[in-house]
């Protein structure tokens, strides 16, 4: 049999298997969990881009605007993460797909650390802003108190912490993404599919 038709057979088999597993509601994350997961992904990638772009800008009005947006997005992620944790508390995640024990442990540690960082990073940014004497006003509407005194040394320290925590978070995001792709393309299990929204109306996958 030619290689390309072997590949086609294999592909068909995989698609069928994935579809069957994706259709199994019990193994899937719920709609709210999926929405919160991807919304968080979009927000943190946007904020990473914004953060890396705004820092080297010369002090121009656009820079002030981007800093403001960066802070608003950060606080939004903080609030969404609490919402996700609350949701997960009341709606347990589906059991993990079959995998070696060390991988299951690694996934658990990675995900727990990511949740922790999604809460801690916005706080570090908020304190950093406070230390430079710049108040944070969420969405331009809700003024938050400056929790630490204006202090250059403290500001420098908090900036370093903010950057280091982000480096850690995005390293974990990288591992998380590579693992999800490995489950999908190598192990061909539904680990990724169950976190993706269903395509098309229910029952149309036949």
């Amino acid at each position, binding site marked *: 049999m030619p290689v390309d038709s072997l590949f086609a057979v294999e592909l068909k088999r995989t698609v069928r298997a994935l579809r069957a597993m994706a259709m199994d509601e019990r193994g899937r994350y719920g709609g709210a969990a999926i929405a919160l997961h991807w919304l968080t992904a979009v927000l943190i990638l946007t904020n990473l881009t914004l953060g890396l772009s705004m820092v080297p800008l010369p*002090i*121009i*009005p656009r820079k*002030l*605007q981007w800093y*403001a947006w960066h802070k608003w997005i950060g606080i939004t992620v903080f609030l969404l993460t609490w919402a996700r944790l609350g949701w997960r508390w009341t709606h347990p995640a589906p059991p993990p797909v079959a995998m070696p024990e060390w991988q299951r442990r690694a996934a658990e540690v990675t995900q727990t650390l990511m949740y922790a960082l999604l809460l801690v990073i916005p706080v570090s940014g908020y304190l950093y802003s406070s*230390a*430079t*004497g*710049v*108040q*944070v*006003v969420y969405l*331009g509407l809700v*003024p938050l108190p*400056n929790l630490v005194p*204006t*202090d*250059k040394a*403290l*500001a420098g320290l908090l900036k370093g912490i903010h950057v280091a925590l982000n480096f850690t978070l995005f390293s974990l995001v990288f591992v998380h993404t590579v693992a999800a792709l490995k489950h999908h393309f190598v192990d061909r299990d539904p680990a990724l599919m169950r976190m993706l929204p269903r395509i098309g109306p229910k029952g149309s996958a036949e």
Partner: protein
Amino acid sequence: MMVLLRSFIPSLGALLLAAGQAGAQGLLIDKSEIRFVSKQLGVNVEGRFRKWKANIVFLPKNLAKSKAELEIDLGSIDLASDESETEIKSPSWFNTAKFPVARFASTSIKNVGENRYEIVGKLTLKGVTKDVVVPIALKKDATGNSVAEGSFPLKRIDYKVGEGMWSDTEMVADDVVVRIRMVLPPLA
């Protein structure tokens, strides 16, 4: 009230102060502050000046002979960010190369009652001189020092602080509130 007021008199009477950097009788400069709050995109941004000199003569019974003179080293601004500090010293803002100091000199001091005073004077900033009124409240702290606190608003555009693209007050508000706190020692 009279008792309180009288208790002030000895220390206030002695506040014949050639104040500034040093001097046992002088202004307690480490406890004194010149701070300000501006607004960027509706958000409060705080800062202060690290270096300034003051010559304060305060005689509650002889306000005509009393005076307050301040000289502020604009280059000593503290915004807790090297980047912001470099920016604000640039020509569009303070232009410290050309205008290194801001000055305030009182022209009259009025007693407006209840340990409150109004210091009228001239503020010179970036080559522009304007009249300002600084309301002051006097009180004593726990260690017996006299503390004069007050704040006054100024419009940065009046002094050409923030020119060009920064004259847009949507980004950085025109209003800046200056807060001063002068601590004067009790009579030894």
